[in-house]
């Protein structure tokens, strides 16, 4: 008998989706209980198109090969003291932000996809999510292993997981994923697979990867490339889920639109941290945040939303605000950290004269007018030995949890304040986008664990900032925080460099 060649699509179906069956003895709704409460209507799971057709044998084979290659590079990196090859020790602060702010999100993604990878009633969708779950676990673990060597030579990496659960600015990324995971299964997928992985992920990974490459960071660059090679599955899952929901039932369209509006805005707020990294934290610059936004969102996203329009989906709400924000957001975010540098787990710094010129060139309409004067003043004060820190605790936006430092985009001298009343309490927001999100689901956002409120309420081990930083955050004060200038990181770096060790 000559075996006929089974086409890949039919074979994959036979090996995955055909494993499931219709229940006769137990209540299937009890086995998959969370599919309906969001109002999403699934009429026919069989219409799910498998976004990729990877069986476990091939998965093991290819992923093992990737891991072998990746860990060979990690081993070589630490054996050769690869950290000495970075452009400047200041660069390392960018990856401190990554390990404390982003890697725990990969972990949350692992958990979120494990949940939906169990809960979807459709076997095709489930298996796709399971594979993403294990990929996300891979990402967090390879990131830890890539940073493990840096941790041995620089401050600020050592308590990344403890910090993620507690530190004020890390509640921005943490609340983002807590929000997605606490939502229903379909919202989770629109939030993470579509809005984040498909629409915005290039803005996170490409700048970090090319930033690493431009600054001589072989380890980060390599895990970045290695992680991106899994993204094929993740991005196609993002596209499949949105098409599937939009095609299943027309009542899903407004629900999906609402989620896109919400998660696009939440995503842009989360990315403020990438914006400041690109413009201020990389000694060797890649491109400006504004340019990255134009290439990766405005062009690519524009084409996507043009296609989505056919389903009756429009551009996310407040997208017009982001067109203005790209001129300001990185400068304002870095200013927040500069003024609170004593409470940050990484080192801040004032841009050098050359860097300011670069910023002027990249932001001809805004930098010289609004931001250069601030930095020049800060520099003057620093030179006089009067480096200042803002001592009070900032008010936080209830939704995105970023301190209220962003301005009205039509008047960059005016801090933006929005507020809503709910059950007798007043809640504050940094923008129309964040206020809108709150107003749609106030019961959810009143639960936010706002770090500043918590400190005031005495839930963080003390009322004064120093005790909180030392005891509750477990920061090594004088080592992890404050400016790069004068830090132990700087001192060691200069010693290594002057001795010519390498």
């Amino acid at each position: 008998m000559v075996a006929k060649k089974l086409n890949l699509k039919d074979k994959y179906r036979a090996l995955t989706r055909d494993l499931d069956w219709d229940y006769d003895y137990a209540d299937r709704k009890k086995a998959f209980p969370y599919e309906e409460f969001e109002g999403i209507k699934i009429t026919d799971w069989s219409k799910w198109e498998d976004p990729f057709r990877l069986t476990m044998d091939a998965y093991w084979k290819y992923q093992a090969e990737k891991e072998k290659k990746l860990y060979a590079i990690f081993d070589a990196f630490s054996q050769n003291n690869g950290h000495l090859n970075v452009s400047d020790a200041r660069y390392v602060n960018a990856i401190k932000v990554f390990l404390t702010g982003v890697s725990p999100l990969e972990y949350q993604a692992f958990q979120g996809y494990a949940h939906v990878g169990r809960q979807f009633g459709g076997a095709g969708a489930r298996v796709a999510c399971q594979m993403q779950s294990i990929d996300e676990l891979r990402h967090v673990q390879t990131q830890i292993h890539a940073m493990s060597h840096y941790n041995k030579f620089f401050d600020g990496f050592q308590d990344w997981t403890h910090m993620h659960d507690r530190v004020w600015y890390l509640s921005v990324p943490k609340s983002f994923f807590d929000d997605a995971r606490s939502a229903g299964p379909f919202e989770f997928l629109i939030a993470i697979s579509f809005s984040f992985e498909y629409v915005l992920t290039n803005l996170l990974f490409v700048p970090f990867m090319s930033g690493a490459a431009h600054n001589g960071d072989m380890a980060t660059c390599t895990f970045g490339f290695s992680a991106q090679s899994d993204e094929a599955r993740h991005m196609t899952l993002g596209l499949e889920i949105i098409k599937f929901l939009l095609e299943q039932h027309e009542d899903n369209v407004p629900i999906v639109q609402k989620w896109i509006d919400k998660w696009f805005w939440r995503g842009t707020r989360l990315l403020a941290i990438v914006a400041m990294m690109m413009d201020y934290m990389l000694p060797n610059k890649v491109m400006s945040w504004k340019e990255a936004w134009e290439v990766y969102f405005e062009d690519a996203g524009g084409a996507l939303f043009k296609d989505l329009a056919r389903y009756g989906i429009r551009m996310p709400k407040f997208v017009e605000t982001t067109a203005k924000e790209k001129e300001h957001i990185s400068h304002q975010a870095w200013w927040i950290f500069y003024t609170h540098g004593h409470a940050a787990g990484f080192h801040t710094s004032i841009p050098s004269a050359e860097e300011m010129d670069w910023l002027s060139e990249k932001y001809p309409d805004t930098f010289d007018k609004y931001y250069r004067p601030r930095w020049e003043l800060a520099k003057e004060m620093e030179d006089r030995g009067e480096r200042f820190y803002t001592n009070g605790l900032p008010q936080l936006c209830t939704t995105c949890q970023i301190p209220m430092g962003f301005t009205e985009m039509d008047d960059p001298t005016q801090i933006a304040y929005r507020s809503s009343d709910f059950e007798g309490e007043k809640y504050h927001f940094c923008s129309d986008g964040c206020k809108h999100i709150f107003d749609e689901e106030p019961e959810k956002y009143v639960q936010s664990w706002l770090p500043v409120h918590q400190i005031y309420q005495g839930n963080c081990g003390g009322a004064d900032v120093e005790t909180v930083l030392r005891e509750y955050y477990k920061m090594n004060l004088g080592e992890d925080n404050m400016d790069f200038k004068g830090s132990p990181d700087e001192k060691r770096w200069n010693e290594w460099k002057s001795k010519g060790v390498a």
Partner: protein
Amino acid sequence: MSKVYLALQDNDDSRYIVEAISEDNPSATVINQPAMIRIENEGELVVLRETVEEKIGREWDVQELHLSLITLGGNVDEDEDQLRLSWNV
């Protein structure tokens, strides 16, 4: 009597091997150096397959030691269950 020693590349497999050696040779000294782990002991040093397997969580062939080995000092006595270093008198 002089010390016998093993120097291993500082990689993940070595960490389990060192853990096993430390357990089987309580008097041995472990010195972590850049990219390298040196274990030395007065008189004798033994690497037992069984202990390494327990630490590393899989089957382990004594000859796999050579994948991570940089150098050693002492006369070698190796079989399928162990590698023993000592100075022949």
